[in-house]
């Protein structure tokens, strides 16, 4: 009985891999083969779909746009969340609890509610169809999350560290930059991971706020799917390529995943 417990996670991982395998399988087939026959492996193995994506600017431009606003958003969210999380973890000030809760309520706001007003707001200030607009819009849910995660990690650092440094005569910002930030480096990594993740996977706001110049890859995919009919091989290849950045990021934070998903609050 005990010997068989490994079967549970093994079966679950298998279940997770089946759709990914099918996507990869399709991405190496030509559209004719996909529609014409049903095979578990590509019979005429082709890289044409990938070649098309990596050489056509409307396709690879979408990847660059997406990576651009995701990185901007991650840097912006973590940089602003760091001092705020420090304040929430170390100081009491007027309205701190209400402010913290208000920040979290923005994580509960459905993007569908904000799609139209965001479109109008960013058009009005002339940022429509720029990467900056998407990066700013995604801070709506990423900043509260980053503050929440970082606050958890910071609160597990003993307060003695701060006090000792101040007694030693460190000015606040030098203590913060030289001592405190390196101490919670793993927490910053986890927060950045989450910001990257939620900005990378979001489609509704990214699509609403862009049209041509900053169009993200996810929007390119949905539009291609609807306009050029059944180019399934191409769609599958584009989908397979969107998994790559996520897989790389997971690889880098693999040692912190478990603690990170607990948001530093085990």
């Amino acid at each position: 009985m005990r010997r068989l417990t490994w079967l549970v996670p093994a079966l679950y991982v298998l279940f997770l891999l089946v759709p990914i395998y099918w996507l990869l399988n399709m991405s190496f087939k030509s559209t004719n083969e996909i529609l014409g026959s049903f095979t578990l492996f590509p019979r005429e193995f082709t890289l044409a779909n990938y070649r098309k994506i990596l050489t056509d600017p409307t396709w690879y431009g979408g990847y660059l746009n997406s990576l651009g606003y995701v990185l901007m958003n991650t840097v912006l969210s973590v940089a602003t969340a760091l001092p705020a999380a420090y304040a929430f973890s170390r100081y009491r000030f007027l309205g701190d609890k209400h402010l913290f809760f208000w920040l979290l309520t923005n994580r509960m706001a459905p993007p569908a509610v904000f799609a139209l007003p965001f479109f109008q707001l960013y058009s009005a200030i002339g940022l429509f169809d720029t990467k900056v607009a998407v990066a700013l819009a995604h801070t709506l849910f990423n900043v509260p999350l980053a503050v929440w995660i970082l606050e958890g990690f910071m609160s597990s650092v003993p307060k003695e560290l701060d006090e000792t440094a101040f007694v030693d005569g460190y000015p606040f910002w030098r203590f913060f930059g030289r001592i405190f930030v390196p101490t919670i480096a793993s927490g910053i990594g986890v927060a950045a991971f989450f910001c990257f993740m939620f900005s990378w996977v979001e489609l509704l706001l990214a699509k609403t706020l862009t049209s041509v110049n900053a169009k993200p890859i996810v929007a390119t995919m949905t539009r291609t799917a609807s306009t050029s009919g059944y180019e399934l091989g191409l769609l599958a290849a584009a989908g397979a390529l969107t998994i790559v950045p996520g897989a790389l990021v997971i690889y880098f934070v693999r040692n912190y995943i478990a603690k990170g998903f607990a948001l530093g609050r085990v």
Partner: protein
Amino acid sequence: MREPGALPELQPGPPEAGQAGGRPAPSAIRSEAPPRRAPADGRTPNARAWWLVAPVVALVAFNAIVPLMTVVNYSVQETFGDNVFFFEGMKWFREVLGSSRFHQALQRQLLFTGIILLIEVPLGVAIALAMPRRGFWASVCLVLMAMPLLIPWNVVGAMWNLLALPDIGLLGRTLNGMGFDYNYTRQPLAAWATMVGMDVWHWTSLVVLLAYAGLSAIPEAYYQAARIDGASSWAVFRHIQLPKMKRVLLIAVLLRFMDSFMIYTEPVVLTGGGPGNATTLLSIDLVKIALGQFDLGPGAAMSLVYFLIILLLSWIYYTVMTRDGGQ
């Protein structure tokens, strides 16, 4: 950028400075920390901390308050185009709250959220309990399980679309080959099953990772003590593992509730809300009204009701759960 030392007031200076005789201590790490009188929660009162939260408040206020006020504005007005608006009071709210379309979308939403919570939470806990606690295979499990979480949501939809197509998808073809009549584009039940399967595939890992994190924090001594007492594995689960996982499971359920209540992209790509309106959840209906038909007033009123429902349910859940935990 502010230069270093611009915020000297942030230093909780006086008591410690007195202890150290007014001079900075020679080393950064001292063996004896000075005694201090910390407030109940260990935080120092400091009104200037507002400067530290100001950037976050500015950023989120810009993104939340301006659009939210726009929505509130629309929700009480009627327009016939040309930027001419008439005040309508509570008309749209009465219309939305009384419409059977909204009731049905809300019912579908509650049903969906209920089903996926009932599947994903027990399943996630079971998988976390069966996972290796440390070592190579634990890392392999964690990395592979985190994969679905980082796939863009429309790709998740497209992936399941390709998997479930009755003629060329692996799942659809297999089910039909086994004699089931399965076509998720025509049968509401099949569409629901596929949508639930997709969400279980996509998000169970989040529950697993959170539960696993909770389990990893249990010291080995607890298990040894249980073994000496001859506790059954159910007793170990009930009295050691479950209490230790409680905090993270609270977060897991809250996140899964909120995110499943806001779900939009995956079902839209998979089923487009169909067949008919069978899988039209709240977000899908809202986008149809606000961006599809451009009915600003009803769309805005529905947005606010929708947002308030999430806030209210989250608040009730959180209050009930943490109150029981405190006793």
